[in-house]
């Protein structure tokens, strides 16, 4: 059958593959994880209903879901941007922390304190962006100058940052960033003027959400419309041809890694300034790794990251209610996430199950 002969519905079905494959992967994952629920002696429908209710069942729950998704948007975007340049940035975990640390430190500088709120917020966010920028720049330079693989270097940079942050925040002798007036280990609080406003009081949803959404639009625009974005995509797709065409592959790699780091850093600063008001070392554990999953689910498409991040936020914020009502461990959520990833990474399975052809002549994202 030629494409013209095929019934229009089938053609539409095939054309929507970039959207339907992730959605079908999610649904298939839910079915598979449902098996785990049954094995554990619970009712999967009840568990899933509780999960949905917990994530979206009230305005506050919805706000919590969106609030949890907010940092995922920035870190997944960081991952996706580097991916477009052909780089697998595993370092969002360290870069978000670098940004958060810089923001939490600069925000408590005493000589800044009298400044007007908006200026303070900009200074705090810029510091965080710069912190992430530096933490992304280093593996970028290492890759360009020495060929050191970014997967290895960013993993190592994650360890360095996690341990450095723990020390800087925990240390009592000497006291470096720790707030000595509270018993828990965290940095001194940011002044009220340096805080991004809450959107829904009592939840962790803050104005940083719009910042992250703006970043999504900006990233898509840079990639699609600017010469730099063209260079990033060219280097990511065929570095040899990019070099032949006169692009500087090394400069593009360095810039893409640094910008990727900066995005994650901004996400971290936004959380410190918005949701938290201070930094405790453990709060970003796994955020950078979840970002990898979210970016893959969104197939590294900037706009696709928003729903993917929301899904992750929903799974995390709905889990406690599921545990309470259905008696399922919150770990079930991790099983669902993992199953989604398996079906996304092995999209051949989904394409086979749902009869979606692999597009010809195109490479992945």
């Amino acid at each position, binding site marked *: 059958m030629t494409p013209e002969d095929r019934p229009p519905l089938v053609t539409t079905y095939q054309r929507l593959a970039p959207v339907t494959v992730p959605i079908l992967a999610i649904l298939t994952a839910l079915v598979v994880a449902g098996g785990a629920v049954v094995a554990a002696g619970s009712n999967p429908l009840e568990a899933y209903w509780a999960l949905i209710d917990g994530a979206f069942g009230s305005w506050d729950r919805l706000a919590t879901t969106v609030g949890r998704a907010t940092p995922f948007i920035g870190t997944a975007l960081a991952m996706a941007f580097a991916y477009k340049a052909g780089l697998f940035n595993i370092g969002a975990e360290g870069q978000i922390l670098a940004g958060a640390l810089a923001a939490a430190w600069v925000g408590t500088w005493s000589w800044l304190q009298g400044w007007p709120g908006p200026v303070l917020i900009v200074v705090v966010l810029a510091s965080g962006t710069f912190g992430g920028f530096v933490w992304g720049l280093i593996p970028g330079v290492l890759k360009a100058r020495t060929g050191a693989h970014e997967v290895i270097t960013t993993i190592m940079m994650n360890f360095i940052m996690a341990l450095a942050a723990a020390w800087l925040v925990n240390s009592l002798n000497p006291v470096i960033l720790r707030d000595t007036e509270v018993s828990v280990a965290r940095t001194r609080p940011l002044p009220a003027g340096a805080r991004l406003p809450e959107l829904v009081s009592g939840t962790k949803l803050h104005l940083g959400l719009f910042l992250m959404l703006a970043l999504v639009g900006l990233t898509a625009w840079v990639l699609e419309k600017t010469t730099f974005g063209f260079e990033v995509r060219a280097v990511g*797709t065929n570095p040899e041809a990019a070099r*032949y065409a*006169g692009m500087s592959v090394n400069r593009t790699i360095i810039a893409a890694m640094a910008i990727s780091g900066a995005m994650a850093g901004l996400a971290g600063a936004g959380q410190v300034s918005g949701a938290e008001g201070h930094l405790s070392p453990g709060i970003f554990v796994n955020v950078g790794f979840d970002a990898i999953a979210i970016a893959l689910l969104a197939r590294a498409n900037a706009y696709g990251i928003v729903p993917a991040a929301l899904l992750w936020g929903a799974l995390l914020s709905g889990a406690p209610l599921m545990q309470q009502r259905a008696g399922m461990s919150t770990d079930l959520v991790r099983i669902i996430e993992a199953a989604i990833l398996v079906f996304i990474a092995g999209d051949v399975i989904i394409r086979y199950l749902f009869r979606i052809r692999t597009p010809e002549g195109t490479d992945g994202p």
Partner: protein
Amino acid sequence: MADTGHPVLELTGITKTFPGVVANRDVSFSLEQGEIHCLLGENGAGKSTLMNVVFGLYQPDSGTMRVNGREMAFSSSADAIAERIGMVHQHFQLVPTLSVLENVVLGAETVRHGVLDMDEPRAALERLSADYGLPIDPDALVGDLSVGIRQRVELLKALYRDADILILDEPTAVLTPGEVDEFLSTTRELVRSGKSVIFITHKLREVLAVADRITVLRGGEVVGSTVPGETDEAELASMMVGREVSFTVDRGESHPGEKVLSVRDLRVLDNRGVAMVEGCSFEVRAGEIFGIAGVEGNGQRELVEALAGMRPVDSGDLRLGGRSLVGLGPRQIAELAVGHIPEDRSRHGLIAPFAVSDNLVLNQYHRSPFSRRLVRNRIAVESHAAELVDKFDIRTPGISVPVGQLSGGNQQKVVVAREMSRPLKLLLVAQPTRGLDVGSIEFIHSQLVRMRDRGTAILLVSAELDEVLGLADTVGVLYRGRVVATMAAEEADRGRIGLLMASGVEAA
């Protein structure tokens, strides 16, 4: 050859369609015991599809296939191999990190008590190698072998599986002229010892040299069958293309002007640090095509890459109109009005998933009017593309289609259009027609001549001696990284150049 004459393979009325195209329409074809049957056709004529049907990789929509008189329907290549059919693919199916022996046994390993036995296969391989005159080192890593030797490994792989019917898909496309001759005599050796060969190609000279019978495919249909004694290149070409084809490039006198490129005592290293170009000197003048003849691997690639700024100059000098190019990068050199049609279009020349329009500005995307203040101007890019698609007759469903979906000839036209769409002082051209069909070759040759007539200096590097002789105004022979002789085109004949290519010295 007591056993010749009866058909070992008969295809009747084979039709195979893909979404949107009929690749084979009612094709009938037969192969007799002990013959070389050439399947001739342009790219996209359906040759490879037909052979993939025979090898069980595709299932035909209709038609029947008989092997040794019995009707067969293969559902996979394993079925074909079981019927003693072997195929040597155009793109080798070898694992570069494994040895020759390991590649040969891969998929047909001998196992004894659950353990891999390599002694028996080694003896079998050595026997095959001796029987068919295909010398090979079983322990050499395939990744270290030249293209010609890798092909030999592919052939031994098929023979190791006891193939009696051998399908050779464009076996000479990647070989040097010397390797081609060797390969053709190997093929004759194979049929002499009882094998039957289907030889797929679009090179007419080879067909006439080696075939017992010739079948021509065009647009998925058989347009005719003949034998070498009753036909010639011109007739075969017009059968293939469907119209008269001129083999001689239509070009007038050249009017060389001042010196544009001068290369002095150049030395360039390859990736391993070996000097591939050494003591190389020559000059190219405006309005002339300087053709470099030479067996591949004599420094052609390194020479062109150094000229294009993609590979550092180790020592010596390169000058463009008096200005040194040493130390400049690809963009700086391109901005001095130097164009480059690279040897490997898919690796260097194009970004396959990008749109045709983006590929047409791949080296100018950052300049006005294609970009203003760092933002791309889509309208300018698209109107530029529409203009070039029209001017260079690029057959594409649209300018936003990924360039990787175009045929090889049209992909090359995209590269040619891009490089020729701006005024150039110097155009570097490497293997401009490799793997292309007759129609595209004609077109690209005429474009090169047009560029020359507008005063551009052209450096042409080609493994096809005919191409160099047909286009060049001045011919230089590259031997071990050095231009060993330079002569006007009128003084260049195949014999003289062939000797220089092979030995680096003139006949005594």
